[in-house]
């Protein structure tokens, strides 16, 4: 069931540009492009949260850092995507690596809050960077330039690039969690003490996973900045971290496709509900609660028939 839904969702996403051109509705490229970018961010969070048990409440920090890397380079006149994107990903990886040395000393709620702490520090830092727009944010006048290889200014090309990267991230995380490395990560989530007793120095594997996740989210940040042609501190506000987290949990953490499902559902639902009424939150809120109460394991759980009530241990 999960497989069928995943494939259906991916096929639907692949068909968006076609439908958009047939019905002359290019706006949907932006809408669904944004959905896919957040899906990548959610996949990256799921990698450490769903498989490594590391609940990050500061993942938007990477979204923002990746975006600012593109924005700042663009402002300094470096438009080449071959420079911007590796730097965006690299700086996120580095930030994850360095903060990981600290945050991974804690676990549980303490981990949640210390990841938030680092994201907040970054938030205040960018808010005060008057040179790069500060609170107003930074306009990106030209999208990343890939030397004619692909033109990000063309709606469909950019869309398919995002789509390809989404597939790549899905593929990478699917391989990753089944690899030896993934087994260590999952083992550490289930029982870290046991993992250490059989000889795994779990800290370094968790740190590696945290770094990979940060890098992947940095890619999403670079994409988002290019799509928005803008980057501002609101991208790394804690409420954004909360939203990414909600997407992952909503979609379900039992499979790699959960985050895609979650991001699509959360963003599209709030979008269409907001079209319906400005009081959309009063519908959205209870919907989230109902998902928790009646589906164990998020939407993915709902699809595979894991009902909350019958799953009592």
């Amino acid at each position: 069931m999960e497989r069928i839904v995943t494939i259906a969702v991916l096929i639907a996403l692949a068909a968006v540009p076609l439908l958009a051109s047939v019905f002359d509705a290019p706006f949907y490229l932006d809408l669904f492009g944004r959905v896919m970018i957040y899906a990548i961010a959610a996949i990256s969070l799921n990698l450490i949260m769903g498989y490594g048990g590391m609940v990050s409440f500061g993942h938007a920090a990477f979204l923002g850092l990746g975006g600012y890397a593109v924005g700042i380079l663009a402002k300094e006149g470096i438009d080449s995507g071959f420079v911007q994107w590796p730097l965006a990903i690299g700086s996120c990886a580095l930030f994850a690596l360095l903060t990981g040395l600290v945050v991974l000393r804690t676990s549980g709620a303490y981990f949640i809050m210390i990841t938030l702490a680092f994201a907040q520090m970054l938030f205040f830092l960018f808010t005060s960077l008057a040179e790069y727009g500060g609170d107003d944010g930074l306009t990106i006048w030209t999208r990343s330039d890939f030397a004619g290889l692909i033109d990000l200014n063309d709606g469909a090309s950019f869309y398919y690039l995002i789509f390809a990267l989404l597939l790549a991230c899905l593929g990478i995380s699917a391989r990753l969690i089944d690899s030896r490395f993934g087994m260590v990560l999952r083992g550490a989530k289930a029982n870290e003490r046991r993992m250490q007793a059989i000889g795994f120095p779990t800290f370094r594997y968790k740190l590696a996973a945290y770094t990979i996740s940060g890098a992947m989210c940095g890619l999403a940040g670079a994409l988002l900045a290019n799509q928005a042609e803008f980057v501002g501190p609101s991208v790394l506000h804690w409420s954004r971290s909360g939203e990414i987290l909600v997407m992952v949990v909503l979609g379900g953490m039992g499979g790699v496709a959960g985050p895609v499902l979650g991001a699509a559902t959360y963003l599209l639902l709030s979008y269409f509900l907001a079209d319906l009424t400005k009081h959309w939150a009063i519908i959205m809120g209870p919907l989230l609660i109902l998902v928790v109460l009646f589906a164990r394991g998020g939407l993915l759980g709902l699809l595979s028939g894991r009902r909350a009530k019958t799953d009592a241990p």
Partner: protein
Amino acid sequence: MKARTIALAAAFALSAALPALAADKVKIGYVTTLSKGPAAIGKQMQDAVELALDHLGKKMGGLPVEIVYADDEFDPEIGKLRSEELVKKDKVDFVSGFIWSNVLLQARQPIFKANTFLIGSNAGPHELAGKECSPWFFSTSWQNDQMPEAMGKYMTDAGIKRVYVLSPNYPAGRDMVAGFKRYYKGEIVGEILTPWPQHADWSAEFAKIRATEPKPEAVFVFYPGGAGINFVKQYAQAGLKDTIPLYNVFTTDSTTLKAQGDAALGLLSTMSWGADLQNDANKRFVADFKKKYGYIPSFYAAQAYDSIMLIASAVKAVNDKIEDKDAVRKALKASDFASVRGQVKFNNNHYPIENFYIQEVVKDADGTYDTRIKGTVFLAHADSYGAKECKMK
């Protein structure tokens, strides 16, 4: 894959190259905040737009008008997405609204790229006034700096020698301080930039003001929205209101006065419009607004009303040929409409050249709080960026 992309690109190119058809109606996208915290402002703007349509008989020139409201949810990203939707899906002829600088700055690109006019009816960031000024942008409000400039002038003229300055630590806040300094000639004895937006308690700052020697004669602040409510209440509670007079910009307006209550009474601020401004358009606007909605409009409402009226004047001037963008731009630039702000011209960067007034918070006979114009500070005041940095003529 590649072939399909090319086909798609061709399709897009084709649709863009089609000759523009004559318009059968005027479609305006109106972006504002309708949900979350600051929805009160969005509601005022929406009410004002509806009133403008009433006054226009729902027609601009010979064309019927359709307004598409979009909620930016107080989030720049959503604001940008909705703007994109307006120009690409709804294919509006004009976009207007925008309360917040950061939302406007993020949302403008897709609007400009779609060759659509953007009539900002509140936010006035300096970027759009200076180096990044755009032929597609017009403002029916002000450039951020103009308001504190007026206050700086007023306080200099009033002979106030020593001022303490407080403002949030973000670009608009720093712009406000810079604008104030541009025209204030006395001594600034202290200046604090407080964190934004989470700062909610000024007791520490008040203690510093009180401890300043020699004693400041006045305090100048910029705290918009909810922060302004907090600030004004706490300033009065600290007993400072009666000892050191408070002057502000954007801190006391009709969206905040109810919650500020007596704490705001007597406070002075500068503004380019007031409900008691004496001109025919404004009298009609305020009277009808009160009658229709039962409350006093704020400057947000006035500027929103003007934005619709400006568009209407342009549509009429080009004889409904709104597809002729150059003609429309010329007509907009002419600013040939009865503004509720009185005589208004556009600067080279399309920000208004207008009057600025000093106004005081008063309590009406029926117990509601309101502002009264006390005098004029600037006549036909232009912003300081247009001439210096904007290359448009």
